[in-house]
């Protein structure tokens, strides 16, 4: 009976460890990419480019994906803004959510993002 209780206890601990590992990466390098925040003052009528660094801290070569997950725009002003990738000399007239580039393990790359305010003319 004592042995059975011990066995159940060890099994419980083991399953808890497994479920924890499933949710949280145990290898620190997996989440070593830094989050960042920028203040971007911009001239009226001009495009502004801000670059941030992204490092592949995993052990595999991969494509980079990016998407806007939050936009808080001034009221009555939504249509005037754009933000998007300005990679490989693309003119960002619309928001783009993919950086179609491959990054090697350990490689750092600068990802430029463009911001602007535009007005559609008839």
């Amino acid at each position: 009976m004592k042995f059975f209780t011990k066995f159940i206890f060890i099994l419980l601990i083991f399953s808890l460890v497994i479920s924890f590992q499933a949710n949280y990466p145990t290898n620190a390098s997996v989440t070593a990419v830094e989050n960042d925040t920028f203040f971007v003052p911009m001239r009226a009528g001009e495009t502004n480019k801000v670059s941030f660094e992204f490092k592949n801290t995993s052990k595999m070569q991969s494509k980079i994906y990016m998407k806007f997950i939050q936009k808080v725009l001034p009221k009555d002003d939504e249509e005037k803004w754009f933000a998007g990738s300005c990679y490989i000399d693309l003119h960002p007239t619309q928001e783009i959510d993919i950086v179609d580039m491959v990054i090697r393990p350990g490689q750092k790359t600068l990802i430029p993002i463009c911001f602007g305010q535009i007005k559609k003319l008839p």
Partner: protein
Amino acid sequence: MFWTNKEVALNKVAKFVLEVYLTKDPANKAIVTFYVVCLPPKEILLTVGDKEAKINGKIAILDSPAFISSGKNFVPLRFIGASFGCQVSWDSKTQQISLILFVLELDFWIGKKEMQTKIGSNYKRTYPIEAPPVLKSKRTFVPLRIVSESFGAEVIYDQNTRLITIHFPPISKYKP
């Protein structure tokens, strides 16, 4: 699509949050936040040792002229605060100087070789600085370049004429 310098919304902050990750390893990701604000451009001209400055061509008089110490340009705090249009606060107890522009806050301390940058509610970083703010003749002077560039401005210094030119916001070098 046409570009225009009219009818854009000035002085309103837009916030964009971007998620970047690897397609083969989604856990390998970064969250990057941008606070973007469109501002009327300013050109600030001042000369070391001269009380007269120009902001967009208009003459402004400084309480005390800019000076150079250890190779760094120092300017009166009130002047640089008014030039950038930011709020300035001074805590005499802690000798802390704060400059606030929209969501960006720069904190300095008299004689302390570090500064703190806060953006929005979640971002706070401390950086070492070579030239801390100083008190001189009961006036507070701050290092011009570190303050200006922390706001995102462009600073050009002509050693021959001792003329300092600040473009804020910086002139965009990106031409789509």
